[in-house]
């Protein structure tokens, strides 16, 4: 046991735990505020939205950023979780009095069913790459919601009416976020995460190194779908009725926007981007009413374009450098802590974990050179 704590301590680096700390502090503060009545309902709703957006963005980042496969069907997995999880919850409410227990059970079941769908969608993912996989997953999302729309048992076009959990749902939702972060960050920062990143970086070499590509691709799809399903159940407990139109491909793309803005392969980035985009969306929806509502998408688009330009324009790089938080941080802390510049002289290689989330550009994901490597579809025997 002592050895265990020693090894935990050895790998400990505050930087790796910053997201847990920030979210926990935030959760405690907001929970106290909500329970003592200092936080209004609308803010609590916003927090719930932010929580399930974070779950969606981080789980999609696992597929897009770490595995390097473009999936546009994330809302489809969420849809499966929302409909089936809430359908179960409606039934469970008649037997179990505790609403928290119902929520937890339905989250697990909804997530598990979504994971099964993730497995099914993961199977073609083994054969398809880049744009082709994007098309398949896009179609999956649309098919799923159309099926639910046409089932009477799920309320048809009117949607599945659910029992609202109450405005303190955000507390549960953020606890789920924390649990998910523990699972996904630990996965990414392990030998399995390394295998997944290796597949992204060079699939051919990964295979030659004996990595079971089939297994890991399926595994990532299943995990990602599981958490998307959980996000769906949370959504179902927040918004009633669960309506098929919410899970359109637009929503899938919105999740992808969160991932791309937060930079692919960066979990902290996904969290920030998810919170930011949900906040902007929420404010635009609530502030702009009546005739102005049409402006929402215009403003939203302008904000997104502005963020992308600020992020990437080379002309702005010096200004960004000047204003960067990291610089400020180093400046303040530099007086107290001597910064180690030489990477080779770092005390231990554990430090190497903060290199794992690397950025890959969208071009690489979509460009032609990701097409199936023709030299690698070798079995031409049938063509004879």
């Amino acid at each position, binding site marked *: 046991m002592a*050895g*265990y704590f020693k*090894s*935990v301590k050895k*790998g400990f680096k505050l930087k790796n735990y910053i997201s847990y700390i920030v979210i926990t502090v935030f959760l405690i503060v907001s929970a106290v505020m909500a329970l003592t009545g200092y936080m209004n309902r609308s803010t609590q709703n916003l927090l719930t939205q932010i929580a399930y957006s974070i779950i969606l963005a981080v789980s999609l980042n696992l597929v897009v950023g770490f595995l390097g496969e473009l999936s546009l069907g994330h809302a489809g997995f969420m849809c499966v979780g929302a409909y089936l999880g809430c359908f179960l919850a409606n039934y469970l409410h008649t037997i179990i009095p505790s609403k928290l227990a119902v929520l937890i059970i339905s989250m697990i079941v909804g997530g598990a069913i979504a994971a099964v769908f993730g497995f099914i969608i993961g199977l073609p993912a083994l054969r398809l790459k880049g744009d082709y996989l994007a098309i398949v997953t896009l179609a999956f999302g649309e098919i799923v919601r159309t099926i639910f729309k046409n089932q009477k048992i799920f309320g048809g076009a009117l949607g599945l009416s659910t029992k609202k959990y109450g405005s303190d749902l955000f507390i549960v939702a953020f606890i789920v976020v924390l649990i998910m972060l*523990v*699972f996904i960050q*630990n*996965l990414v920062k*392990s*030998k*399995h*995460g*390394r*295998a997944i*990143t*290796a597949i*992204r*970086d*060079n699939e*051919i*070499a*990964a*295979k*030659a*190194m*004996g*990595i*079971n*590509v089939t297994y890991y691709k399926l*595994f990532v799809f299943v995990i990602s779908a599981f958490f998307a399903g959980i996000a769906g159940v949370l959504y179902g407990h927040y918004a009633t009725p669960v309506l098929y139109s919410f899970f359109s491909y637009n929503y899938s793309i919105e999740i992808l926007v969160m991932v791309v803005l937060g930079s692919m392969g960066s979990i902290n980035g996904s969290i920030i981007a998810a919170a930011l985009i949900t906040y902007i969306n929420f404010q635009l929806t609530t502030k702009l009413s009546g005739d102005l509502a049409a402006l929402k998408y215009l403003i939203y688009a302008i904000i997104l374009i502005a963020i992308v330009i600020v992020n990437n324009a080379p002309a702005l790089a010096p200004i960004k450098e000047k204003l960067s938080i990291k610089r400020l941080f180093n400046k303040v802390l530099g007086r107290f802590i001597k910064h180690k510049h030489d*990477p*080779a002289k*770092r005390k231990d*290689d554990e*430090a*190497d974990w903060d*290199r*794992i989330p*690397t950025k*890959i550009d969208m071009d690489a994901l979509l460009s032609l050179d990701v097409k199936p490597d023709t030299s*690698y579809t*070798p*079995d*031409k*025997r049938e*063509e*004879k």
Partner: protein
Amino acid sequence: MSEKYMLETQDLGISFGGLKAVQGIDLKIRKNQLYGLIGPNGAGKTTIFNLITGVYTPTTGRFFLDGEDLTGKKQEVINHKGIARTFQNIRLFNNMTVVSNVMVGLHNQKEFACSPFASMLRLPVHFESETKMRDRAKELLSIFGLEDERNNLACNLPYGKQRKLEIARALATNPKLLLLDEPAAGMNPNETEELMNTVRFIRDKFDMTILLIEHDLKFVSGLCDEVTVLNFGTSLYHGEVEKALHDPEVVKAYIGK
């Protein structure tokens, strides 16, 4: 098989549609041997590597590693059984650090086994296997003099070191047979000399059997015990290096009449 060979191929061949890329290859490589595969461009050397590592499924013939038939097995299975390779055009995991690259090679070994769920929950077995893998990776890197680079990204290494890292990564999978595809390509004479020493060292230290493709005939003649010369997908000559270089058929294939 009367005698036991580390790698034996019997009438190995592949055709793409009507094109017979490689046919009738009979390699017999003994344990602990340094074997060379040479031939002009397009002779099918890399194709043979791709056949042996399971990238392509052979259309004719079979191949055996240490007496075990591996024909038609998947790439990862063949790797588990003990064939590791490097690539002609370097294929490293560019966005990962040098040490992580080697650790990917260590991924499949039983002593470092740890299920994904154990990693997710950070069970003791996770830390154990991580520490062991890291130590092993450092050990391998130090053989190639790369231990000071271990925290750099693989793509930032100079070319010669990238080649070395690729060999280190292949060795990490604990192979019985190591396939090197043009290891000396793009190296200057000094680096080539150094690489020759490294290859010999690997063979002696790890008791490895090595099959290599190379265009640098000096490199091949200085290193290999035996060669097979390929031309147009068939084996032209097979035997000792010195004799091969003076064989009229081989000379003809290389520089014409």
